[in-house]
């Protein structure tokens, strides 16, 4: 399954691109699985996702916990804790 990943703030800067399409490996079921998988994709991913517990994820623009199943989500947002307002 192909999904669109979108990155923001220092996650975007460290990975070095704002978005990309990837094919999800069959064994990537949850958000946590996805973060672990991405971390193995190179130094830039390792730098961005070094502490996965602080990373926030949205499936189709809704916040989810790391144990959430990715299911049929088409767009996955990956970003640091928010600092707006």
């Amino acid at each position, binding site marked *: 399954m192909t999904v669109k990943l*979108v990155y*923001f*703030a*220092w996650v975007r800067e460290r990975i070095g691109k704002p978005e990309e399409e990837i094919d999800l490996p069959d064994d990537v079921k949850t958000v946590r699985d996805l973060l672990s998988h991405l971390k193995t994709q190179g130094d830039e991913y390792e730098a961005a996702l070094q502490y996965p517990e602080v990373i926030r994820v*949205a499936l189709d*623009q*809704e*916040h989810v916990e790391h144990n959430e199943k990715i299911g049929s989500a088409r767009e996955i*947002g990956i*970003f*640091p*804790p*928010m*600092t*707006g*307002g």
Partner: protein
Amino acid sequence: MTIVPLIRVQAQDFDIRAEIDALTGGRHDIGAVVTFTGLCRDEQGTLSALELEHYPGMAEAEMRRIGRSAIERFALLGLTAIHRYGRIAPGENIVLVVATAPHRQAAFDGANFMMDFLKTAAPFWKKEHGTNGSAGDWVAAKDADDRAREKWR
């Protein structure tokens, strides 16, 4: 009739009086209007600008979700939330919330609730540019902002 929050994410500044008038004009059932405006501080002269990044689409959607909760929870008569993005200089506006209600505590609570959740759940990120020409650091999320949400449990 269901009351829906008015949500905008924009680069340009906002006009607080126009936003209040849009919620109150022509009606006689509003007893209280509370506004919150968040401004860019210069941090004792060390900050030359904030750069605000957001997640287009989700920023509006999340603000709308928070706004709907605020309207329902405090029986607001109206709620507007506007968040700017891009480069913002010290003294400039960043965010505006306007809440209207028949009585004052609901309007205060509605605006305060909207801000507490907007800070911690709406996908915006601030980068600070220093007056010393430094490239800029991303602002760290504050524990105090997470704790501020706890008062609404």
